């Protein structure tokens, strides 16, 4: 393990996840919530993680900051290299110093992720007092500044309100203010807009985008909304049943998907310009990750399914420099989309 080298790794990666496996022991057997995930995130870039509910998106990110409830969860193997340090090898105390200070997180539901019994100001102050050693006065000043930054009007007065006196959108702004108050190098946003209505969603995403540009923070954005991914991210990972099924640059993924699952997802996005017929839907349900069959996990729902799909686990095919797809017929699908003439 290298030293805490702030000037990042030579290849410019802030975060490298290698073959991460997080399993949960349940009465139903071992649930492989995350099963061999690898990805990299460069400084200042945004990575989108897309997938259905239960595909392992959130578990991946909780594993990164080691917040998997143990028991029943366990990170079985893998490396999470952040700034040249494998977080999985650090002591709890050391990880605690990184959480919030260098890796911050925004949660899905702003309604429940603020402590209902603490004033907004105190929750914000806790962060900087803890990590930056601010005095009470300093921390308060910083908290109000952060609230202004995220667009809370009359921040000085509203800082002393309790969370229930804020609306959902405002609470998510507070969460963002909290997450960014120590200027972290990595921001993990776990479905930050799922619980908000559409107009507020747009505002919050715009806010994250702006603040990211200002601070140069890298962002991991977890979502199941492909629209959000398209507008926000540089790279996308599509997850299914604890595995990465496709990984590509955002523009490439939308233009030339190389996996039947991604194609299905893209087809399910309603097109406002087209005539509204019956909306497309991928048939079936995501598999039970406790009892996976040996073949491709997506096989039972796949349009292009062949006999081999049920028998053998598909390879992770490289389609071009940074486009990978987990499919026996990745090249065919990619070609069908119009790509792959060069490779």
């Amino acid at each position, binding site marked *: 393990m290298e030293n805490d080298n702030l000037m990042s790794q030579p290849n410019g990666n802030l975060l490298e996840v290698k073959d991460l496996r997080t399993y949960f022991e349940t009465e139903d057997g071992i649930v492989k919530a995350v099963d061999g995930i690898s990805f990299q995130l460069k400084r200042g870039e945004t990575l989108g993680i897309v997938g259905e509910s239960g595909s392992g998106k959130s578990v991946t990110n909780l594993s990164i900051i080691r917040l998997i409830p143990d028991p029943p969860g366990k990170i079985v193997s893998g490396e999470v290299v952040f700034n040249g340090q494998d977080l999985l090898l650090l002591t709890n105390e050391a990880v605690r110093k990184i*959480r919030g200070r260098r890796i911050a997180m925004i949660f899905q539901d702003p309604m429940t992720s*603020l402590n209902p019994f603490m004033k907004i100001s105190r929750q914000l102050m806790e962060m900087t007092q803890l990590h930056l050693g601010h005095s009470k006065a300093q921390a308060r000043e910083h908290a109000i500044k952060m609230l202004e930054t995220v667009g809370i009007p009359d921040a000085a*007065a509203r800082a002393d309100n*309790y969370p*229930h006196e804020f609306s959902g959108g405002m609470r998510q702004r507070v969460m963002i203010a909290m997450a960014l108050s120590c200027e972290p190098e990595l921001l993990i946003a776990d479905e930050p807009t799922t619980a908000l209505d559409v107009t507020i969603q747009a505002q919050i995403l715009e806010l994250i985008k702006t603040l990211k540009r200002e601070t140069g923070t890298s962002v991991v954005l977890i979502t199941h909304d492909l629209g959000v991914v398209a507008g926000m991210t540089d790279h996308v990972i599509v997850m299914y049943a604890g595995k990465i099924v496709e990984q590509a640059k955002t523009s490439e993924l939308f233009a030339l998907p190389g996996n039947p699952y991604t194609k299905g997802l893209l087809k399910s996005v309603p097109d406002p310009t087209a005539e509204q017929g019956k909306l497309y839907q991928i048939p079936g349900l995501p598999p039970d990750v406790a009892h996976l069959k040996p073949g491709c996990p997506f096989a039972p729902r796949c349009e292009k399914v062949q006999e081999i799909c049920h028998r053998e686990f598909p390879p992770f095919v490289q389609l071009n420099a940074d486009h990978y797809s987990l499919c026996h017929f990745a090249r065919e699908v990619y070609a069908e989309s119009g790509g792959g003439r060069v490779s």
Partner: protein
Amino acid sequence: MSTDPDLIHIPPETAITEGEFVRGTSLWRDAWRRLLKNKLAVFGLIVVVLITISAIIGPTVIKRTTGFTPDYIPTDDIRLIKSFPPFTGPDGKFSWTHPMGTDNAGRDQFARVLQGGQISLFVGIISTLVSLLIGVSYGAIAGYVGGRVDNLMMRVVDILYSLPYVIVVIVLLSMFRSQTARGQLVLLFVALGAVSWLTMARIVRGQVLSLKNQEFVMAAKATGVSTPRIIFRHLVPNTLGPVIVYATLTIPQVMLTEAFLSFLGFGVQAPLASWGSLASDGIQNIAIFPWQLIFPGVTMALTLFSLNFLGDGLRDALDPQMRTV
């Protein structure tokens, strides 16, 4: 970080439409309003406050105005019977000097009841505080840590629960019988506090169990807050509602136990007095001087009633299910 407002796409003024400054009602103000609507609880609150105030300042006021103290035994009176009925002077005529009469030794009963109130309330409050301190920490730690630790800690509580606690207290008090009255009082606090935290621990554990999986705890963990801080700064304040209710109901319970013990002669020792020891003194002469039992007894009953009404009122006021505006 730069905070140049021009860089932010959404100007703050338009960002949030309901941005007007609203002083919302906090949970506590809400609860207070509901409590005031409950007549019995308000009655209880007033009585408790009155009795507490008069117990604290009463003995001093009586000493200033009439010269009686709880321990003052008139020596100039050489008659055999020194117990006067209420509102009766030594001459058998109506008089304001002893509104509750006098006791066997001729001491002013009113002053003694007020002094007994001091001790009784003190025992109730201190023991409840002890039970709060131990019970809340114990329950919160057991609930948050969970697993084997929780199991072990709660089995200890179960075992202590299954012991007949009055007997435990009696054994404790008679084993470590102190020479001085004050020492005995301290022992009483310890003994009562040591057995009254069990239910509190269970209540807090239950609350913490249901709270610890909420997202704000995860959010606190994700910001690097340490475990003790999560337990005591984030979780314990969230359990305050039930804790306050139960604490209010523990005070009369402890006071009753204290009275019971003093009545049996294990609790407060002379020259100190509590309502229980006064009643115990009074019962010996109940046939001839009934006021010596009636006054401390009625005062205590009134206080316990009031505390129970108040506790019930608080429970209704702090219960979110009752929220109907």
